[in-house]
């Protein structure tokens, strides 16, 4: 507390990325016309250096707090932050061609993404309601703008407007919940709140009321049923490159957000929030999987699939023990990389000459380009959780977390909806392999991107022998939490 420099050292990655965001904003003014690539390259360098700094700043042992206990750095924060850097880095590579072609290649695009990254990092490392809120808003406001980036598109503008209104509402809920908790416990510091709650009745009306508002806020941000309405419109309306970003890094950040609020703050009320999340999870798995069947737009289908995946993701948190948390973390990491591959493929197909948003655009892809068809199929099987893809191990880990705490019926419900979910993923595979193509135009794609995407997709299969290592990393990160 006395040594401000020691505090700053812990937050160096955040400070660095934020500084670079400002620098790029300035530099872009001068290089925008003649050397547009400079901002892109600077952003990528920033992400790489940020990744490195995050690893360097990681505390060796237990959690370390800084800035009057407003900021915490622990194993989970390091893992989540470094994953965010990797995801954002790859996302930008995938987006590069897309935003160039669609005239969104502007410095602001990169600056907003970097600010969103800072927002996520602050959120992940927050140990105070104020820090959490600042991180969340930093992220959300950047995302609202990114969605509206393609300002000539009606769909995108509509999506951004919906996102903004609902997002603001959710933030309001969250703040209201936080203020009630402040009234009940007299503090905004998460650790103080946790200790205060332990000394109170667990059915204290004020506590529960505050918790409900916070859980609702979380539900909005995660996009779980019944607070999911914005997700399909964003996924369909926003530029694919932005959806690619929204669908990956922020999901992992959301995990940390839930952990900090519910687990760190309200561990004593686990029974209450676990029940609330159970309802969200069941509804999300049900509605997400069933409504996805009716979709003809691939992006919209993936939006409903996201809703259902968020339901599965919460199953681990519901079990309210470290085993469950690490299962959820594992699930969300696997999910992010799979989604990244899915939207990466959509972007690549769109670049290759035809707009690839409708499922029917993929008709007979196996005849036109067997390699791409195989990659799309692999991603679909991974999303459906069919072995030998990693998606299966993600499902396995949350199911074992549920059975560990004797929630058998919930595990059975989860697998039943997984079967329903498999149907629409199979429908995509069917379109790829069993139908005749409408056109025989050859598909061409940038070689570099094709290569990275192939690595991304095949990692979903070839990581199998080492999948245990990933699980170990997740459980270690959770065990080192503050």
């Amino acid at each position, binding site marked *: 507390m006395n040594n401000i420099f020691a505090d700053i050292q812990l937050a160096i990655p955040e400070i660095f990325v934020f500084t670079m965001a400002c620098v790029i904003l300035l530099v872009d003014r001068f290089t925008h016309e003649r050397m547009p690539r400079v901002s892109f390259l600077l952003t990528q360098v920033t992400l790489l250096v940020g990744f490195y700094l995050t690893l360097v700043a990681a505390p060796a042992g237990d959690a370390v707090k800084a800035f009057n206990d407003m900021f915490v750095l622990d194993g989970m924060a390091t893992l989540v932050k470094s994953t965010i850097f990797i995801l954002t880095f790859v996302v930008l590579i995938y987006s590069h061609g897309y935003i160039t072609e669609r005239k969104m290649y502007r410095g602001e695009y990169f600056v907003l993404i970097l600010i969103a990254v800072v927002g996520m990092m602050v959120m992940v490392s927050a140990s105070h309601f104020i820090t959490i809120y600042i991180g969340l808003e930093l992220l959300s406001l950047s995302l609202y703008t990114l969605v509206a980036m393609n300002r000539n598109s009606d769909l995108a503008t509509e999506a951004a407007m919906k996102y903004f209104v609902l997002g603001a509402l959710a933030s309001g809920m969250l703040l209201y919940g936080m203020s009630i908790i402040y009234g009940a416990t007299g503090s905004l510091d998460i650790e103080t709140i946790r200790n205060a709650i332990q000394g109170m009745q667990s059915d204290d009306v004020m506590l529960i009321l505050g918790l409900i508002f916070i859980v609702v806020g979380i539900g909005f941000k995660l996009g779980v049923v019944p607070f999911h309405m914005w997700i399909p419109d964003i996924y369909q309306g926003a530029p694919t490159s932005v959806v690619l970003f929204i669908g990956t890094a922020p999901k992992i950040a959301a995990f940390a957000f839930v952990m900090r609020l519910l687990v760190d703050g309200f561990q004593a009320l686990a029974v209450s929030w676990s029940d609330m999340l159970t309802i969200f999870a069941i509804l999300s798995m049900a509605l997400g999987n069933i409504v996805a069947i009716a979709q003809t737009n691939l992006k919209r289908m993936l939006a409903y699939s996201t809703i259902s995946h968020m339901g599965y993701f919460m199953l681990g948190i519901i079990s309210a023990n470290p085993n469950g948390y690490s299962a959820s973390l594992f699930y969300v990491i696997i999910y992010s990389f799979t989604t990244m591959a899915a939207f990466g493929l959509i972007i690549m197909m769109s670049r290759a000459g035809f707009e690839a948003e409708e499922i029917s655009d993929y008709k007979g892809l*196996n005849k036109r380009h*067997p390699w791409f068809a195989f990659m799309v199929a692999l991603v679909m*099987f991974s999303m459906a959780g*069919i*072995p*030998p893809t990693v998606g*299966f*191990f993600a499902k*396995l*880990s949350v*199911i*074992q977390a549920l*059975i*560990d705490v004797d929630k*058998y019926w919930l*595990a*059975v419900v989860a*697998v*039943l909806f*997984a*079967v329903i979910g*498999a*149907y629409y993923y*199979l*429908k995509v*595979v*069917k379109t790829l*392999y*069993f139908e005749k193509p409408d056109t025989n135009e050859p598909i061409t794609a940038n070689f570099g991107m094709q290569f990275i995407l192939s690595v991304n997709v095949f990692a979903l299969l070839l990581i199998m*022998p080492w*999948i*245990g290592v990933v*699980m*170990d990393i997740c*459980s270690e990160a959770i065990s080192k939490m503050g």
Partner: protein
Amino acid sequence: MFEANQLSLAIWLPIAGAIAVLATGNDQRAALARIVALLVSIVTFLVTIPLYTGFDKASGELQFIENMPWISALNINYSLGIDGIALLLILLTSFITIIVVISAWQVIQEKVAQYMAAFLIMEGLMIGVFSATDAILFYVFWEAMLIPMFLIIGIWGGPNRIYATIKFFLYTLLGSLLMLVALVYLYFKSNGSFALADLYTVKLGLTEQIWLFMAFFMAFAVKIPMFPVHTWLPDAHVEAPTGGSVVLAAIMLKMGAYGFIRFNLPITPDASHSLSGFIIVLSLIAIVYIAMVALAQTDMKKLIAYSSISHMGFVTLGLFVFNKMALEGAVIQMISHGFISGAMFLCVGVLYDRMHTRKMSDYGGVANTMPKFAAFMMLFAMANAGLPGTSGFVGEFLVILGVFQVNAWYAIIAGTTLILGAAYTLWMYKRVIFGAVSNENVKGLKDINSREGLFLLILTLTVLVMGLWPAPFLDTIHSSVDKVLALSSVTKL
């Protein structure tokens, strides 16, 4: 090193070979793809032969054991090992794959490399299923197999293939996922182990066992398939290309029965005993009722599909009377049915390639134009009906004998299939092969060529050898069957 990893080699060699086949590229180099596929399948068969020669038949324990840690967080291991039952099934798998590759030689002209690769990948995965001794490893192989089969039916299948393949996939997925929940439950019961050997010794209450039994039952009964969850099979068979039908009938159905032997009987012995009446009734319904359904079919492939269900009823009957003879009969029936149903589907395939119809009414008098073929098919039809001297007889006879010792009525009901089976098979044979030449198309038929003759001949020899001298097969499984019976008779309460 080669010696120690023989099972791994048998699993991964065909999968690596499949990648090589895919690498041959598009249909312009189809000939190369065929040759590579044939070579890979033959080499894999050769690799599985030392498993037989090096197998200690006197021991009922697992052999050729391999063990490597895989996922330490959940204590999942890459552990393999086989007993006599698995050994025979592995040999069956690698043998049938060669036949499938040869049978597709001229028939498949589109996306040849992908077709061959799909079958080779399936071969590896099926061998994996039969040799896995870790529940999750088993599950991974078991489920992964759905993907190639889904594509095989969907790409190269008949007109209604999309409906059939999605039905097949979802049906089996539903059963399997419930099994997954059961496995995870056992994981916590056994203090964190997925090793089958540990699951065999976990103490479990009767209610628990019944729930677990039902979860496993869902997975395996769908695969076998048992009445009343059999409805996906006729659809899948009818729409699948010949090779797909052969693998489906000859090997995939056996995995369900194998699952009963590996999971239900040893892990939930008390539930197996208390629910055996239920399984026996379902088996008898399958044997009698489905045989009657087969009588009413007009489509040859559908008829054989129903006949498969009826024959698999014998297997499940043999498993759940807890009698050594019946259990051995069930295992022999699994192997023999693999050869016979495979051969029957190949015969239908031979006709279908020429006439592009499977309706029996479109045929008639084929014997006049295809005498050699008629002779081969005669033998397989007889074997399907369980004629003594063919492999079909051995298994059914042993099961009936064994069941007789337990309950004469069961045996009598099951025995009616010898009549019904003969009725539907021979009636089909009569309508298709005998009589006067019925139409112009039949008149123009050409007899089998040397390639078709080759695989039919190989299968004929196998069916006869197994029928006349079943000792090598029975010797291999004696001790393993004893072990299964011993495990299933120890109470876990």
